């Protein structure tokens, strides 16, 4: 049901997000493009304006030169001389057409450049009209010279200008990319450091990890806050762990004798059965019950009863080897697991060893002594039973039989 409702939303969310580096990169690129475009446009406009000024001046000067050259030709109304007067102008690049008009506006001569206009559009923008200069002689107008410009010189400037602009754009772009990379590196590196620490803490519970001091003030403050948070977390974690250990101990142990309780015993028995099955081993289960404990309780009081239980548990523990296990499973009932069990050990020997351990009198809080006695029932795995219930039942039955024997004795 839940498996179908969520295909994998976290992956999609990560895919839709962008990294800081990408974001910065995009931002930088935008700013760079804007700046370069703006400066390029400014330079282009300034250049075109200046160029236009020069072009106009050039045409004007050409027209003045022409006017000087054709002046006598106009005085003498001589077309041949006018053509020769225009000679110097025909060698100036950027002139498309020349025309000399006499005092009544009739053309005396004209010349058209044999070269084709490389960019008629540019010509139309820059030289929409011819430059006309009136030729004067002694203060009276004797004719007019008209000069049409063309784009042959402009096109060179525009070409060089565009190339230079492109070059500048490339250099600026590379420079900015380099600087942006550096900036990104400077910013992303400390962020990554913080992220690594946070990740380590979350994934590996490494509460001792701390963020190193960082070069950027804001990030350093963030790192400091994270460190403070980690300090707190570490404190909580320590408290929690000791509390949990305490609780776990309490859950599995008897508070009076500090022996494992019934729950711990059940768990332990299941483990021992599995382990013995695996290695085809044997172990013994001893069921121990204090005789006449109720009478002791009634005669000497509960404090004395408790003291007897503590003494019993201590003595039983003393008989155990390293791998053996003892638990208090009821008011005056104890269980011992002897594991592993050597092949030649008899059940009766084990029971006798426990009986012998409790023979010494117990000193009670009131100063009296109490001689305790126990009944012991032994069950062997796998001889008496191959599961926990069967073993317990067998041990319990054996203990009961022992108790009957003790009473009749």
């Amino acid at each position, binding site marked *: 049901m839940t498996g179908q409702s969520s295909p994998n939303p976290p992956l999609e969310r990560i895919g839709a997000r962008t990294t800081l580096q990408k974001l910065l990169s995009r931002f930088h690129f935008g700013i760079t493009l804007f700046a370069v475009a703006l400066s390029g446009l400014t330079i282009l406009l300034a250049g075109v304006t200046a*160029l236009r000024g020069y072009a106009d001046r050039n045409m004007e000067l050409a027209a003045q030169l022409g006017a000087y050259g054709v002046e006598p030709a106009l*005085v003498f109304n001589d077309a*041949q*001389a006018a053509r020769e007067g225009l000679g110097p102008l025909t060698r*100036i690049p950027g002139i498309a057409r020349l025309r000399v008009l006499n005092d009544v506006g009739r053309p005396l001569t004209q010349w058209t450049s044999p070269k084709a206009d490389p960019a008629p559009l540019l010509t139309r923008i820059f030289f929409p009209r011819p430059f006309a200069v009136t030729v004067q002689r002694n203060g009276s107008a004797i004719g007019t010279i008209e000069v049409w410009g063309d784009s042959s010189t402009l096109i060179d400037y525009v070409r060089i200008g565009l190339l230079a602009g492109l070059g500048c754009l490339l250099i600026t772009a590379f420079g900015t990319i380099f600087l942006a990379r550096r900036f990104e590196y400077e910013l992303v590196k400390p962020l990554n450091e913080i992220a690594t620490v946070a990740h380590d803490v979350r994934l590996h519970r490494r509460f001792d990890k701390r963020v190193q001091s960082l070069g950027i003030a804001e990030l350093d403050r963030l790192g400091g806050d994270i460190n403070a948070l980690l300090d707190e977390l570490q404190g909580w974690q320590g408290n929690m762990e000791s509390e949990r250990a305490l609780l776990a101990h309490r859950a599995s142990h008897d508070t009076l004798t500090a022996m494992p309780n019934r729950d711990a015993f059940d768990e332990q028995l299941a483990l021992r059965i599995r382990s013995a099955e695996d290695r085809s081993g044997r172990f013994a289960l001893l069921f121990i019950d204090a005789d006449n404990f109720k009478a002791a309780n009634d005669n000497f009081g509960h404090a004395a009863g408790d003291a007897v239980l503590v003494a019993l548990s201590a003595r039983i523990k003393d008989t155990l080897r390293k791998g053996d296990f003892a638990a208090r499973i009821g008011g005056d009932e104890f269980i011992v697991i002897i594991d592993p069990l050597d092949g030649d050990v008899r059940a009766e020997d084990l029971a006798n060893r426990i009986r012998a351990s409790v023979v010494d009198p117990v000193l009670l809080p009131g100063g009296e002594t109490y001689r305790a006695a126990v009944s012991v029932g032994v069950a062997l795995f796998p001889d008496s039973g191959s599961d926990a219930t069967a073993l317990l039942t067998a041990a319990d039955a054996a203990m009961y039989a022992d108790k009957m024997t003790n009473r009749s004795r």
Partner: protein
Amino acid sequence: MPLKRSWGRCQVLASLFLIGTLVTTPQMAVQAASQTIVEDSSGGMTRAVNRMVGGIVSYARWPDAAPPTGRVMCLVGTPRLADRMAPDVPGPGSVAVRRIAAAAVNPDCDILFIGRMPVADRRQLIAWVRGRPVLTITDDDAACIYGAMFCLSNKTASLSFSVNIDAIGRGPLRVDPRVLRIGGGGGAS
């Protein structure tokens, strides 16, 4: 920037060209060149001659630096191309014309228009002019070899003038190089 530079270069070229023209022209001392268009009507030639004479006068510089207008033109002999001599100087002002005999030539004459006359008279006039600031124009010497500075000649439906550079070079009078170039036939270009 390139525009300005190329412009400057062209200006220099143009100046060199003009200077070059001046330097090279004297080697061909006399050459007919100008091709003034003459209107195809009665009096067209007279108007053309007067305009040409006026133009030549306007490009001449006398040593006293006074303007060409107000100068006195002495007309000697019979003009061949024009019925009535009244130089048409561009702009305001005009040139006074006096008809005199060859023997009566005097220092008041700033311009000497030499029409048809005996060869001896012409030679005498040319000799008199030598060293004086006097502009000499003739219309009776198509080859321009007899010592006048400017020689007018008519071809079919056109009027032209030639320049005798040697004659100009001998006198203190200065003539605008552009006019010398036109009169020199533009062969140097």
